[in-house]
């Protein structure tokens, strides 16, 4: 039978009483698949701070109970024959002008073909778009197609991302390795050596994107696999008394905390320039280069580094 839970949700008026009654009548709804991690909206709405509440980021298209596998399989076959040419193999629209069904208002509001069937039956004229012809399909076939469409919508990922398609081979190595070698000799060789610390970087980090992120961000940065990050060190010169040196634990406008060689920590209240605080962050050299790179510089150096095996 139809998953009535989903019907009620779509209608926007799912009451406790209904849910309990329908769940008791039929099979309990399948647990919803994750529609993207909770809090993914963080990027869209400023992820500075935790995601609130305990609810997963699920929408009706991902909460619904799918039709039987046999219906979906039949719907897929019918889709391939009747719909694919215009709406695309992945439902995201096709060369013949059919709209993307994964973000279509009709397809998202449709439950079991009741909104899709009249359009397939009668066709649809939309100004500025290729007209949808009327297709003489039986209602049961259109319902099967609708169930197939919903089964693909179900697999959409978070923040409106489409379902994962077949793997695409992407070539990130578009740079000129010789130009990268020259850049390395000019800008990097004061700290790095192609025969020393970088000698096998292309082997140690075989994934090109990871390699590029690692060197642009600086060793020990995000994505780095080169062992322990080099610590940030600090030298503190109080108004009176000896200098203190060690690993920087934290610094803000009001306090500086240093980890000493003996494993203890020491903190100093800050008041403007007192005490004097000198921080040495090995990543500063990389950070300060960030505004100077062209994208070509980056791609050239990456093309060079992959040759260091």
């Amino acid at each position, binding site marked *: 039978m139809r998953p009535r839970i989903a019907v009620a949700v779509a209608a926007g008026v799912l009451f*406790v009483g209904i849910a309990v009654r329908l769940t008791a009548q039929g099979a309990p709804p399948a647990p919803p698949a994750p529609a993207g991690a909770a809090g993914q909206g963080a990027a*869209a709405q400023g992820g500075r*701070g935790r995601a609130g*509440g305990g609810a*997963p980021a699920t929408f009706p298209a991902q909460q619904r109970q799918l039709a039987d596998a046999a219906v979906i399989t039949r719907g897929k076959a019918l889709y391939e024959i009747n719909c694919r040419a215009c709406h695309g193999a992945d439902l995201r629209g096709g060369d013949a002008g059919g709209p993307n069904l994964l973000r279509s208002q009709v397809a998202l509001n449709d439950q079991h073909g009741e909104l899709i069937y009249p359009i397939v039956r009668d066709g649809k004229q939309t100004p500025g778009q290729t007209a949808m012809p009327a297709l003489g399909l039986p209602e049961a076939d259109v319902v099967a197609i609708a169930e197939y469409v919903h089964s693909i919508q179900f697999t959409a990922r978070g923040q*409106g991302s*489409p379902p994962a398609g077949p793997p695409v081979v*992407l070539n990130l190595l578009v740079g000129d390795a010789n130009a990268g070698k020259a850049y390395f000799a000019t800008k990097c060789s004061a700290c790095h050596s192609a025969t020393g610390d970088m000698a096998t970087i292309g082997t140690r980090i075989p994934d090109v994107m990871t390699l*590029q992120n690692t060197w642009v961000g600086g060793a020990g940065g995000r994505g780095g696999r080169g062992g322990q990050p080099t610590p940030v060190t600090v030298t503190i010169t109080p108004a009176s008394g000896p200098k203190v040196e060690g690993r920087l634990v934290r*610094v803000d406008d009001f306090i500086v905390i240093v980890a000493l060689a003996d494993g203890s920590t020491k903190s100093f209240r800050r008041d403007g320039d007192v005490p004097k605080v000198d921080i040495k962050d090995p990543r500063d050299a990389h950070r300060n280069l960030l505004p100077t790179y062209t994208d070509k510089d980056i791609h050239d150096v990456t093309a060079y580094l992959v040759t260091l095996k």
Partner: protein
Amino acid sequence: MTIKHVLLTMSLMLVPALMLAQGAPGTSPNEAKVVPGPSANTPGATGGLDPKDLYKPLTDSWPTYSGDLTGQRYSRLTQVNQTTVKNLSLAWIGRITSGAAAGGGGGRGIGAPQTIVGGEGTGEFGNGGAANVKGAILQVDGTLYVTSPDNVWALDARDGRELWHYFWKTKGGTHIGNRGAALWHNYLFFETPDNFLVSLDARTGQERWHVEISDFNQQYFSTMAPIVIDNHVLVGTGNDMDSPGFLQSYDPETGKRQWIFYTVPMNAGDPGLETWPSLEAARHGGGQVWIPGVFDPETRAYIFGTGNPTPGYTGVGRKGDNLYTCSLIGLNVDTGKMMWHFQTSVHDTHDWDSAQTPILVDATINGRPRKLVSTAARNGYFYTVDRVTGEHVVTSKYGSTTNWELKRRPSGEVDPNPEKEATIPGALVSPVEGGVTNWPPAAYSQDTGYFYVHEHNGFNLLYLTDPDPRGSMGLGGKTVANLGSLGDYLTAIDPKTGNIAWRHKFPGGGGGGLLATAGKVLFSGDGSGNFAAFDATNGKPLWHSRIGNISNAPQTYSVDGKQHVLVAVGDTLYAFAMY
């Protein structure tokens, strides 16, 4: 009370079929059914907060999202000032607990009232997640109104004691945050992640009614703090999946919709359609309205920012400027008709929403008094425009390392460099995905004439992972690598020129929104867990308390002649005062 509520809603079980036919915005132009609650017939349209009070300069209360309707977040209170701020100490701490079974919280469990439960979900989601305050807290007549997704609390502003708690059983949706409530006389309004505008009796927390404001099927989710202007309740909503953005106005008494304004062209002949390749692209073009705007009573203009165009990172299917996404818009609040617009991010391809709250500024430029509005956009650019006409006045780059500009138009907009869109081998982009700044609000001081904003100078490598010529969907089709930052600053900008007056570097990062006061003090969080006060004239730190990273923007109010400074850290409110 809970039982009565269920019975009442059960009596409306025949509604679903009707609802589907009527639909919510995004589906059809018709408005959705207003569902009455237990307090539907309790009078409250007099007394309480007079909406005209929102026009007054901000002093003892904090009656709307930004304090007043200017967006300045500038309080006239002076008890806490540059000299006295060092004496600020803790007045009270209030911890709030979300969910149906909260039954306590701010009152520390002593005599805490029972939670009032509403909502159309089953209760399976969001019941027991930690509260997280990421929006404004209203303060009117000694009562605070606090929100977290699905939850509203009323607390005593004197000691944080809980007066009532309302919990909304959600159907799901993106629970990223809630930006606060609004008040009209004795009625309170807030939005839910599953897209209802809910009205409560502010005195008791009992529900008056709820109405669906956007279509959950289309993957809208709602976070905005409603804004009350006279007899309008303005609500926006959010969406990450290629759906049109809109702002709506509702009647505070009845919940009936007064008007809807779409931020993208929805029909043939609509203005702005020439900036899209097709109506189909425009109607899926985004431009969500998820942060409150400001209001100019003289021109009746409600001025607000819009979010990014969609698909977010793959602009191949939406060539053109994509109006009115990432734009500052002046709208007649009584009619919902656009008066003017200025696009603050042309053809955005970086998810740099421009929804942040703008700020009204009155200033003299070239000897001429001007009515202006300024905004610091997520994309690293600062703009000032004439708020009467929309005429451009200032464009300046305030993000020190921002690198995506191709050229500036004579009309003030900045054309983006297409080479800084996501590419397969990676494009080095500053700012990062989250922007130079984000939704946490900026502030303006009438003493210094400066516009204050947080500035984050990070870099991303932005990779295109879906080179499909149709473009991706939503925020898909890319991979983002965060490479580090050249620093976080508290930055003061002269809105008349766009020049930077000063920058205070946060040694350990910045964070949260800002508050300015007539005591010439700025309040801000930093990235090291400090809540701090700064000299508004030069950015010098004056006071701090290490309470943790703040999750909303600081506010101030006065009760019993005592100025309080209020801020949230997740589920805990901290109020400071002098004794």
